[in-house]
C-alpha cells in the first residue's frame, strides 16, 4: 500500500498545508491523538485473543493457551525494539527486508518520518506497528494449541516473527518493498497479518500433528463466556486496527470505522443464520466466529472500499470461512484447533481479493481503482501479495518447525497432553476448587 502518498493526500490535511510553512514535517495533534488511541486499541487485542482462544480449549489447557498470546506481548515488544522494527520498516534491502540501521530504535524518535507518516512522530508509528507485530504471531497459536510444548512455541514464534512477519511487513508496507511497489493495496494487514498467520497455523498444525483426542474424544470449548469476552475486545480493538491504519484522523479513517462495523456485524448475522438453517440453533461461538470472520475480511480493504462493498464482504466472508471450518476441515482432518486457518487464512485471502475488486479512488485517492471501477489490473498485485504471503508462510514455517525441533522437543507426549499443559508446562492450574 502506498502509505507515504496516503498521508500527504487526504483532503482533511489540506487546510493545514494551506497555513503551515512546512506541511511535510508538521506534527498534527488530531493525527497523533487518534493514532495513539488506535495503538492502545490494537494492543488490547492480544490479551483479547488470549481470552478468545483460552475459552475455546479444554479447561486443562486454559492457561497454556492464554499464555501463547500473552507471551507475545513480552517477546515481540523486545524483538521490535531490538531489530524487528528495523527489519520491517528500515532502509530497504532488495525489496524484501529492511536492514539493521534502525535496530534498538536508533534514530526512531519524536520527529516525523515523512516516508511513513508525515504528521505523527516516528516513534508513534513504530508503536502502532508494534501492536500488529505482537498480535500476528499470537494468531498462529490458534492452529497448534493443546499439544505444543511452551519453550518450543516461544522459540518458534520468535523466529516466525523475524523470518515471516518482518519480511512480509516490509514487502507490503515498507518503503522499497516490492509488493508495495507493485501497487498492492493492504490497508490494515489482510496479507501481512491474516494470510501469513492463517497459513502458518495450518502448516504448523499439520507438521506438529493432531491432538491425541482429535476425531476420537470429546474436544469442546470449556468457557464460552471467555470466548465472548475475548471476541468483545477483539471487535472493539479492531476498529482501531482498521481505522488507525491510515495513520491520520481523516475522512478515510471515518470510512474505515464504518466499514469495520458494517462488515463485522453483517458477518455475525450471516453466521447466526447459517447456524440456524443448518443446525436449527443460533450458537454463541458461531456468532463470535462470524464477527471475527467479518473483521478479517474487511481488514485489507477497510480504507479503500465503500460501505456497500463492506456489506458484501460481510455477507460473503463468513460463508467461505464456515465452509472451510465445518466442511473442509472435517474432510481433510487437519487439526487446526481453533480455526486460525479457517478464519484468518481463508478470510484474509478473500478480503485481499475483494479489496482488488471493490477498491476505488472515490474513497481513498491514495488507493487505486479496482476491478469494478474498470481496472482489472489491480487484481495482479493483489494476487501477487496473497501468493507471496502463502508461500512465505508455508515454506518458512515448515523450515522453522524443523529447526526448532533440533534444539528442543516441539510436541508434548501423549501423557503430557492427557494431563493438560497448564500443569505440565506452567506448574499451575486454571481452576482450583479447593
Amino acid at each position: 500500500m502506498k502509505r507515504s502518498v496516503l498521508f500527504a493526500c487526504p483532503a482533511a490535511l489540506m487546510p493545514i498545508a494551506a497555513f503551515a510553512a512546512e506541511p511535510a514535517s508538521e506534527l498534527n495533534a488530531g493525527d497523533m491523538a487518534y493514532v495513539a488511541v488506535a495503538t492502545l486499541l490494537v494492543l488490547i487485542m492480544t490479551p483479547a485473543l488470549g481470552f478468545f482462544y483460552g475459552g475455546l480449549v479444554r479447561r486443562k489447557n486454559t492457561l497454556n493457551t492464554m499464555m501463547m498470546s500473552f507471551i507475545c506481548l513480552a517477546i515481540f515488544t523486545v524483538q521490535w525494539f531490538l531489530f524487528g522494527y528495523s527489519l520491517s520498516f528500515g532502509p530497504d534491502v532488495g525489496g524484501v527486508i529492511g536492514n539493521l540501521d534502525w535496530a534498538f530504535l536508533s534514530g526512531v524518535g519524536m520527529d516525523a518520518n515523512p516516508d511513513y507518516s508525515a504528521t505523527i512522530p516516528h516513534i508513534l508509528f513504530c508503536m502502532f506497528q508494534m501492536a500488529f507485530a505482537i498480535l500476528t504471531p499470537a494468531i498462529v497459536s490458534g492452529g497448534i494449541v493443546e499439544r505444543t510444548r511452551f519453550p518450543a512455541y516461544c522459540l518458534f514464534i520468535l523466529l516466525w516473527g523475524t523470518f515471516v512477519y518482518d519480511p512480509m511487513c516490509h514487502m507490503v508496507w515498507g518503503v522499497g518493498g516490492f509488493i508495495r511497489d507493485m501497487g498492492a493495496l493492504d490497508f490494515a494487514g489482510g496479507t501481512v497479518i491474516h494470510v501469513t498467520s492463517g497459513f502458518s497455523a495450518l502448516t504448523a498444525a499439520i507438521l506438529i500433528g493432531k491432538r491425541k483426542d482429535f476425531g476420537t474424544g470429546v474436544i469442546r470449548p470449556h468457557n464460552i463466556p471467555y470466548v465472548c469476552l475475548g471476541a468483545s475486545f477483539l471487535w472493539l480493538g479492531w476498529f482501531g486496527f482498521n481505522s488507525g491504519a491510515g495513520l491520520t484522523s481523516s475522512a478515510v479513517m471515518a470510512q474505515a470505522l464504518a466499514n469495520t462495523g458494517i462488515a463485522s456485524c453483517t458477518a455475525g448475522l450471516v453466521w447466526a443464520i447459517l447456524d440456524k438453517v443448518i443446525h436449527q440453533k443460533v450458537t454463541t461461538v458461531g456468532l463470535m466466529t462470524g464477527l471475527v470472520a467479518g473483521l478479517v475480511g474487511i481488514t485489507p480493504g477497510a480504507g479503500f472500499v465503500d460501505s456497500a462493498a463492506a456489506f458484501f464482504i460481510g455477507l460473503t466472508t463468513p460463508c467461505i470461512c464456515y465452509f472451510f471450518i465445518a466442511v473442509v476441515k472435517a474432510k481433510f482432518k487437519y487439526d487446526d484447533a481453533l480455526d486460525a486457518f479457517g478464519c484468518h487464512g481463508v478470510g484474509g485471502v478473500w478480503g485481499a481479493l475483494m479489496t482488488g475488486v471493490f477498491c476505488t479512488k472515490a474513497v481513498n485517492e491514495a488507493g487505486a481503482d479496482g476491478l469494478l471501477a474498470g481496472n482489472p489490473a489491480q487484481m495482479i498485485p493483489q494476487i501477487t501479495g496473497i501468493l507471496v504471503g502463502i508461500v512465505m508462510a508455508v515454506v518458512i514455517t515448515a523450515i522453522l518447525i524443523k529447526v526448532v525441533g533440533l534444539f528442543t522437543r516441539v510436541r508434548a507426549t501423549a501423557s503430557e497432553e492427557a494431563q493438560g499443559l497448564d500443569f505440565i508446562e506452567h506448574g499451575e492450574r486454571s481452576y482450583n476448587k479447593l
Partner: protein
Amino acid sequence: METRKIYKVEAIIRPEKLDELKDKLYTIGVTGITVSDVYGCGLTRGQKEIYRGQVIPINLMPKVKVEIVIYETPLQKLIDTIREVCNSGHVGDGKIFVSELVTAVKIRTGETGGDAIIDNQP
C-alpha cells in the same frame, strides 16, 4: 422401640428438578441433604452440541446427585417422593441407589446412630 436401620439414599436426578425435590423432602421430614454436581451416562445416548458448525455427541451428561440419610422417615415414602418429583417419563430421569449404613456421628455433639440423624430440637 425396635432397632431401626439408617439408610443412605443417593438419587441421581435431572439438575432442573433439584429445587422442587429439595422443597418436597423437607415436607416429609428429611433432616438434611448433600448435593453434588456429577456427570453420568446411563441408557441415554447423550445429546448433541454444536461448535462452529460441527456436531459433537456428548455422552456424559450433567446431573445432580442428592445424598439423603434417613432414620425416622420411611424408606418407601422417600423413594416415592423422589420418583413423584423427578419422573418426567423420558430416558435420563436418573436412578435411586439405596444402601444401609453402619452408623452415623454428629460432629458437634458426638451423638451416634439414629440420634445423629433425627431432628431432636424441641
